[in-house]
């Protein structure tokens, strides 16, 4: 099997890697996905932010309004608007096809967070869209007794003082699910419980009578652990209320749902998986990559392909490695430009390291200073590409979507 030459070997199972594998396999390519870990979708909320904040300040009504302020070299400018539109449509098609529809693109959509903030996002599942609560005068913020890392009081306190919500009343509420134990469980355990008929009815029964019909509810992400909307739809209709799940600290159930959906699709598409395999070296010849080697439980293995897509993430994902004063790309050892001052001492400010990554041309090949590709059959996608400060501009997963789509279309 190691002798097989794939059309595309994808390195990394975060948003960019999974999407690139899905997009390229959907168009008939033979694809192998190499992954060292679970991928960072389990850390994030599974939302696709495109551009939430303009680099000159302020929340954007429509992400595309902010494109004119992007700095030269931003990955979106390499992709171009047309490719981004196509990527968005392709993603929504997949979601529909797999029975886990996200809401159509329609400017920035806001998602409540456990911090009591609104997070501007772009592609959002219906269960996380704050807009659904627009008509509700009373919004209950409901937590589960004993659940870790969620406090209705934090959200109520913050939202009650927001001018944006001046016509709403926020009320904290607590639901008791002793089936989960007295304490020590998180939203993932609660979501798994809600997958069951027993769990779902328990949640609904214990809320009935506590809330008014027609009210809104903000809850932790517990409406089932699986990709799909049936738990959401059922709870919503039986309680006769609008419901919105919030973004929380990891592990993120909502990111896990999207990951499960994409992994399921990859299986159906016949994409081969090499899991727990870390790429340790690459064989290159005449400006092309011939194969990569991985180390894993089964020992060192070689994988050959005509094309490679590197979606190995940033520092957290392992795509970038650093030492004092120096950063490099982890698979090919490509040098990464690092201006002085990697980080700001102010946590909220822009962080230079967020934009560190591989410089690519508009075909997403790593390129030298003149724009000449280093390896013409190696494409880069997602956070590994230089030039986006996603925590600051709120472009997380948006860059992954756009570049993974473009990279797949270039094969």
């Amino acid at each position, binding site marked *: 099997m190691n002798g097989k030459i794939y059309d595309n070997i994808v390195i990394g199972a975060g948003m960019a890697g999974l999407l690139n594998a899905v997009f390229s396999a959907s168009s008939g390519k033979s694809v192998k996905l190499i992954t060292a870990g679970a991928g960072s979708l389990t*850390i*994030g*909320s599974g939302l696709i*932010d495109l551009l939430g904040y303009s680099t000159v300040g*302020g*929340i954007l*009504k429509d992400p595309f309004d902010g494109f004119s302020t992007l700095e030269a070299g931003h990955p979106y400018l390499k992709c171009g608007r047309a490719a981004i539109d196509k990527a968005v449509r392709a993603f929504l098609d997949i979601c529909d096809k797999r029975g886990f529809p996200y809401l159509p693109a329609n400017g*920035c959509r*806001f998602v409540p*967070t*456990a*911090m*009591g*903030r*609104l*997070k*501007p996002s772009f592609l959002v599942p219906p269960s996380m869209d704050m807009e659904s609560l627009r008509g509700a005068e009373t919004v209950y913020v409901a937590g589960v007794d004993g659940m*870790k*890392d*969620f*406090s209705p*009081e*934090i959200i109520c*306190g*913050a939202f009650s*003082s*927001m001018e*944006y919500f001046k016509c709403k009343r926020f009320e904290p509420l607590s639901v008791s699910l002793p089936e989960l134990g*007295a*304490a*020590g469980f998180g939203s993932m355990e609660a979501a798994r419980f809600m997958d069951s008929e027993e769990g779902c009815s328990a949640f609904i029964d214990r809320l009935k009578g506590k809330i008014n019909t027609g009210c809104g509810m903000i809850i932790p992400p517990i409406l089932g652990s699986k990709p799909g909307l049936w738990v959401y739809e059922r709870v919503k209709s039986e309680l006769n209320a609008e419901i919105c799940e919030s*973004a*929380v*600290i*990891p592990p*993120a159930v909502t990111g896990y749902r999207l990951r499960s959906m994409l992994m399921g699709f990859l299986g159906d598409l016949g994409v081969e998986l090499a899991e727990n395999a870390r790429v340790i070296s690459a064989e290159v010849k005449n400006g092309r990559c011939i194969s990569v080697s991985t180390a894993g439980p089964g020992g060192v293995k070689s994988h050959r392909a005509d094309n490679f897509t590197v979606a190995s993430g*940033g*520092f*957290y994902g*392992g795509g*970038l490695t*650093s*030492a*004092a*004063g*120096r950063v490099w790309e982890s698979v090919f050892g490509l040098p990464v430009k690092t201006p002085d*001052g*990697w*980080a*700001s*001492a*102010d*946590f*909220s400010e822009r962080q230079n*390291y*967020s934009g560190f990554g591989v410089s690519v041309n508009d075909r997403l090949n790593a390129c030298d200073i003149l724009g000449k590709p280093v390896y013409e059959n190696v494409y880069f996608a997602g956070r590994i590409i230089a030039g986006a400060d*996603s*925590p600051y501009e*709120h472009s*997380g997963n948006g860059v992954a979507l756009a570049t993974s789509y473009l990279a797949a279309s270039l094969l």
Partner: protein
Amino acid sequence: MRDFKGIADTWFDVVIIGGGVTGAGILRDLSMRGLKTVLFEKSDLASGTSSRFHGLLHSGARYAVTDPEAAAECASENAVLNRIAKYAVEPSGGMFVRTKNDDRDFEERWKEGCSASGVFFERISAGEAREMEPGLTSDTESAYLVKDCAVDGFRLVWQNVLSAGFYGGDFRTYAEVACIEHSGGKVTGVRVRDAVSGEEISVPCGCVVNATGPWSAHTAKLVGAHIGIKPDKGALLAFNHRFCSRVVNRLRMPSDGDIFVPHGSVTIFGTTSSDASGPDDSQPSDAEARYLAGLAGEIFPEIESHRILRAFAGTRPLIDLDHAHLGRDASRNFIITDHEKDGLSGFITIFGGKLTTYRLMAEKISDIVCGKFFITKKCRTAEEELLPSMSQSLADRAKKVFPPSGAELIYARLGPLFETALKKAEADPRRRELLCECEFVTLAEYETAAALDTSVSLSDIRRRTRMGMGTCQGSFCGFRALVSVFGMGLNRERGGAEILLPFLNERWKGMKPAMWGLQMPEAELMKNIYSSSLNISGGQPE
């Protein structure tokens, strides 16, 4: 304590300014001798120099050549603190190591100095040294065992203050002394501002002790007095690993980056010595962090593969009597100035010194203060433990709700409040859950610390419990801490983000200068969680 109204216009014999280890030691000493004493600290206890150092309880060996008097004092005080402060001192032992790149002649002078000052040392072979500390450089040529220990500055200060409390010693935090009042050449009292509410109270007193370390020149200026002090910045690195089991010193003329101190599960490495822009100058530069990391590799070559948790700095109150001395050449010894010579009776400044000799410094100044009140009682601070051993009945109860090693740790951190946490854990099994997994802080302990009126910010609770000081640097326990204080109904007048952001910022400030290698993924994760997922700094849509 934070109740200001309760002490407004109340007479105290002595007011101490400064809640570092010196002030805390004086509070304990004077209270034990029967003087009615209160301490005012402008922010939190142990938030300045007393926690911004390597946490080394000196054996004296480091000063054997440069400052024999300090060496002798360190040697005897080290023994005292091992006796009275077992819940703040980790008797790890220490080692001096000379590499082939260090001056051989210095080794001879050092041995002579140790002998002359009564500092214990014992020669071991380079092979034995590397067996005891496997990470040591193969360039090691000679090695000696000494009696260095690790000391927890936070605990030491709190334990002194709490011990003083048994004798009536009082204190207020976030209490800024705005003015020292005097009339006819005699101190009559102070005006104290509550730094949280901004309200001011008057506290009449007979004597004011200025124990504000690197801030003492600022404090003396309140009465127009001059203090010859030069704040000197020392930068340090905290590694996320205990890569030596005892304190390791480089045997050479004291210089930058020659002390490694293992604490719990981390190692502190330092220091540097450079002019500080002021006493609040506690941010190391990126260049300083890189410089230090390079020096660490000279003794422990594998250190590059270890994660640096943070870089931090403290300012030392070095004596600069004639402005001729600089940096390390300035004496580490202390000076007591009675401002009666400047025409103001009842105002005394103590400055200089080092943490290891804080008790001795407190004793000397307390002798002078007691003399003014005609009190002849002798100092007893070297005889009585700061925190008595945990009783058997408490230990038996604790065993049932906390893991055995956890109980001692919680007792060391909470002291007399241990039973409060224990009762919480006994009453509600949910309170036995860990809030901070890295530093083993249960909800019961956290809530006990959070409920104190001295816990104005999450960072104050961190200093009490060490929550957020381990591997995750608050990425996970930070939010959990916020949920906990909200659950207790505390601080709700402020928004969640307003409470958590200063804490994260303070963690980030330390991570920032040493953000490379294994630290980088953790930093990126922390930023992504709070900025991307939770949008902590985000405003509201229009």
